[in-house]
């Protein structure tokens, strides 16, 4: 077991290295000048050259990459060109905001997705199944930024029940778990939850249908168990897979959604990435992509290790 974990950890190193190269190259091959955000458009050529030197953009790309990796390994993600603030602190706050949003969205998605999935699977081919399946297909297919705008129009503009933007009243300063702040979280979380909801509902429906066709269910019925009792057994059997799907969905949502966070001006990683792209803020862009990518690498590592613990056949494969 230990040797498997060590082997898996060792394999992560070249993957992480590859990810860092892709991160670095992707942002450098994109068009545009990173100094645009810090210099007035008519800044002189001399000033531009000085700034290019100051930020190290005059060096060859491999040298820039090497220096960046060295600093990153020491925990220094550099300083944002546009704001002059450390990338790590910018990213830390945004990650916290996205985490909050992603967890709530996943919980909503899991709750309603499971509910629709179980109901649809249990009452297969009935009108309830069709209705629940329709809702879950809508969840998977609807462009979520569009849904966000529609929710804003209905609940913020027309009904004035919930705020349209930001993470707190009057632009947010500090987050607090009170109604004034939490109401800012509702619309983006609901918007973000529709995709996991749809996916979980589809998965659970198929799972429930499959479980119901198994012999032990007939056994339970033969034993004289009522519908509710049978349903409880089905839920227990379907839960591990549903939870695994939920975990994956949480992973995706933690990456942040540029579109949803932009629509709601939610100060998370997606919003930060969007701004970094528009401003050609290379250190911020590289740092954010790298951290998010490494998060996925770590998530995959954890999933592999946990799977191997639960099912030793995985190790042999």
């Amino acid at each position, binding site marked *: 077991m230990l040797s498997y974990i060590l082997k898996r950890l060792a394999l992560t190193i070249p993957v992480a290295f590859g990810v860092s190269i892709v991160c670095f190259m992707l942002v450098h091959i994109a068009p545009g000048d990173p100094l645009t955000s810090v210099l007035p458009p008519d800044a002189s050529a001399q000033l531009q050259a000085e700034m290019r030197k100051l930020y190290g953009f005059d060096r060859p790309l491999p040298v820039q990459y090497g220096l960046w990796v060295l600093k990153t390994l020491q925990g220094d993600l550099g300083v944002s060109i546009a704001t002059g603030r450390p990338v790590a602190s910018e990213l830390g706050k945004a990650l916290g905001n996205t985490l909050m949003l992603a967890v709530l969205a996943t919980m909503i998605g899991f709750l309603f997705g499971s509910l629709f999935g179980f109901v649809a699977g249990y009452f297969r081919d009935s009108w309830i199944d069709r209705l629940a399946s329709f809702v879950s297909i809508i969840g998977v297919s609807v462009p979520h930024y569009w849904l966000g705008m529609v929710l804003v129009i209905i609940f913020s503009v027309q009904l004035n029940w919930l705020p349209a933007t930001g993470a707190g009243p009057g632009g947010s300063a500090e987050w607090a778990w009170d109604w004034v702040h939490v109401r800012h979280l509702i619309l983006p979380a609901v918007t973000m939850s529709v995709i996991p909801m749809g996916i979980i509902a589809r998965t659970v429906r198929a799972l429930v249908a499959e479980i119901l066709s198994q012999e032990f269910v007939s056994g339970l019925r033969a034993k004289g168990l009522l519908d509710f009792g049978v349903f409880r057994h089905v839920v227990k059997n379907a839960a591990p897979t549903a939870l695994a799907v939920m975990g994956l969905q949480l992973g995706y949502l933690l990456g942040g959604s540029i579109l949803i966070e932009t629509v*709601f001006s939610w100060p998370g990683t997606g919003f930060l990435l969007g701004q970094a792209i528009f401003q050609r803020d290379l250190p911020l862009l590289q740092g954010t992509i790298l951290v998010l990518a490494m998060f996925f690498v770590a998530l995959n590592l954890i999933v592999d290790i946990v799977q191997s613990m639960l099912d030793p056949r995985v190790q042999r494969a």
Partner: protein
Amino acid sequence: MRRALQTLTAMTVLTLASPVLAQGTLRIGMTASDIPLTTGQPDQGGEGQRFMGFTLYDALVAWDLTRSDKPSGLIPGLATGWSVDANDKTKWTFRIREGVKFHDGSTLTADAVVWNFDKLLKSDAPQFDQRQASQGRSRIPAVASYRAVDPLTLEIITRAPDATLPYQLAWIGISSPAQWEKKGRNWQEVAKEPSGTGPWKLAGFTPRERAELVPNKDHWDKTRIPKLDKLILIPLPEPNARTAALRSGQVDWIEAPAPDAVPTLKSNGFQIVTNVYPHNWTWHFSSAEGSPWNDVRVRKAANLAVDREGLKELLGGLMVPAEGFMPPGHQWFGKPTFKLKRDLAEAKKLLAEAGYGPNKPLQTKILISPSGSGQMQPLPMNEFIQQNLAEAGIKIDFEVVEWNTLINIWRAGAKHESSRGATGMNYSYFIQDPFTGFIRHLQCNLQPPAGTNWGHYCDKEMESLFDQIRTTFDAEAQNKVLEKVHEKYVNEALFLMVTHDVNARAMSPKVKGFVQAQNWFQNFSSISMAP
């Protein structure tokens, strides 16, 4: 008797309290994605200067932002007056306003101003700040040296006689040396608690999320002491999010509402405030060899082909049709003889004289961007103009490049390979002072890479006029020269002059007392909030 006394007491209290009654909090949704730099030379372009420049800071020379019915002019700021030496036109003397206090309580002196110039220009000075320097240095190219003659007298020497110096100095916010010392000589720390002399003080800010400004009740200009209790700035870069925030009551004012939302905002009782200001939306022509725009008849034909009224309809009325390079009514407009009207017959005639016609159509390439600061709605607008020009016989191919790429091409020049053989580019300009308005576009020695004369234009008569601008120190006489420059710009149709933006803002009906100056910058001191 007791009742009468009670009434009298209540009335007295109310009367005494009225001057300090809460005038409310104004929450503004900015288009910027972050809180602009707070230390004196803001980033985030004109918007940064508007909200974090002339709120917290004053410059030696200020813009008069009190009128909406005429273009803004320069007025004394932290300098009560200035003069240029009669014998040496490079030597300027500025008289520093007495008794002005920074927000930290320290006193403004000529030495403090010198310290501020060093902060931007002297890279070995302990207070030199690269972030501020990169914003401020290019604003004061004329300054060669400076010194404090006495605590209230500042001397500035320019590289050559340059009468545009006061316009340049209007960009430079003066920050407090004492606060920099107090904050451990660390600009990052000063940024959290900056100190200027402006009518607003920064009460605090959270990067990318909000900034809170409160009035400086001790401002030296009593007419600029804010009536509001608080001004909150919120970055909301996405236009639809901005509009939704206004409509749901999260903010009271938004910059640049989405144009298609303007009719519904109006019908829901929001105020849409617009005014002409020194901005223009042009096609900058190339004068490089082989460019068809080298022929004045072609330039004029293109200008006569544009249907500016039709374009205004397309934009829901949110534009001022160009009558010249400067907005109509501008103090430098002059009396150009070439009128910018739609006259297809005349356009075709001019093209025929230039050798073009149905058998030999004029075809050329223009660089445009799909979006960008000040570019308004570039795609539909350019397509509209493309159609207009096609009706006159000018076939335009567009090369669409991303906005930041277009800025780099603009810096590189029309002859550079990055311009991809284009003979023009759609570019919108900040045209607030003689340099940004005229000189930088067409002066011979500002051809790329030295400057931003993208089209490589060079003309003896224009050079002489530019020299006169710089050497005419009497403001009225200088305005006359600027009129001549503008007349030449228009009469020779040196640009495709299309439109001026109207700086639209949408605000709640509760916002009272805002006067939208014909300027990129605005005064927020006169505003109050109705209950």
